[in-house]
């Protein structure tokens, strides 16, 4: 199946998972997804759990407190919502890991081009922020004051703006030089 086909299948699966309200069906779907995911399954599952843990625990505990106090607690709901979230986020992680997203977005050549250019620049920005974070740790022998953290955040924003403007100009010139804008 093409990348675009997989994208459509993923989207269909997402919609389906939100139309089904039987925990058993969702659990079966999750089991099938796990088995189909192959060797990556445990790594993907771990990443899924890390991604959803904080929010789900907060919502689940909050629900327990509020519902018990109101007298309308349903264990079935807790099971349903957590299974649904687990399934959906796992599917998302699996899709992202397996499919060439840029190819899947090939509906529009402009979109593909923007996505490609963006992804190249994105990694550079991740490195910049990572460097800033490590450098800040290196220069702070004691926990930094709020004002210093604010200065630091501003410095990162300014550095990112600088790089964005420079990169936009460079990228446009490079594309022009390679004939991308010639009729």
């Amino acid at each position, binding site marked *: 199946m093409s990348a675009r086909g997989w994208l459509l299948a993923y*989207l269909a699966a*997402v919609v389906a998972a939100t139309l089904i309200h039987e925990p058993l069906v969702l659990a079966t779907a999750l089991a099938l997804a796990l088995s189909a995911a192959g060797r990556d399954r445990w790594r993907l599952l771990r990443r899924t759990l890390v991604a959803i843990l904080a929010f789900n625990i907060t919502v689940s505990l909050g629900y327990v407190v509020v519902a018990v106090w109101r007298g309308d607690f349903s264990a079935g709901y807790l099971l349903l919502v957590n299974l649904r979230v687990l399934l959906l986020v796992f599917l998302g992680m699996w899709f992202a890991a397996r499919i060439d997203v840029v190819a899947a977005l090939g509906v529009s050549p402009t979109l593909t081009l923007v996505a490609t250019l963006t992804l190249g620049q994105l990694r550079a920005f991740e490195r910049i922020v990572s460097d800033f974070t490590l450098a800040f740790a290196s220069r702070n022998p004691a926990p930094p004051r709020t004002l210093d*953290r604010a200065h630091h955040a501003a410095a990162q924003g300014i550095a990112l703006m600088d790089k964005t*403007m420079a990169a936009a100009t460079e990228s446009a010139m490079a594309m022009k030089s390679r004939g991308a804008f010639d009729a």
Partner: protein
Amino acid sequence: MHIPDGFLSPQTYLPAYAVAAGAWTWAARGLRDRLDETTVPRLAMLTALAYGLGLVMVPVPGGTSGHMLGIALLALTFGVRLAFLAYSLVLLLQALLFGAGGITALPINALAMGLVGATAAAAAKGLLARINEMAAIAVAAWLSVVLPAAIVALVLGIQPAIAHQPDGTPLFFPFGIDITLPAVLIPHLIIGIGEAALTVVIWRYANSRGWCK
């Protein structure tokens, strides 16, 4: 405000996608009129910028920090349409590429933060700049955090009402507006202060370099 998939009902996200699609078409069409060779690279770099700004940790009064939103900065520097499209693209890449999830929350986040946030920021600046430019930027940034938070709180809060079992048990997000509105909005009133301060500093720099609209 990363809502994992599974907390929004199809009755919410499907119509939201329809509305968002209309908004994206409007924004893209507006750009096409001024399309030149720099538009595509600019949009790509702005998308990367929107993503990068989201990595910056903003100290918040009270001792914690949160991720920067950056939509006000983008809107005030590059305009609402580009800001909206760039932000939407970041959400798309995060959902599909990084597996950060949120494909069902995407239209809500794009409309709330990308469109309403950007428009509120631009409107606030437009109205208040003649009184005091820096205060206008600060208010714009604060609104760009608070208004989307209110929208997200509302959208989450109506889930129990629009999607439930016959006996009233919720199927998606379980809390009503009476809980979501204060729970989501109040922290964002404070978070918005950090965003406002940061946006003012960075905007001043961008302005001094002549990059602002």
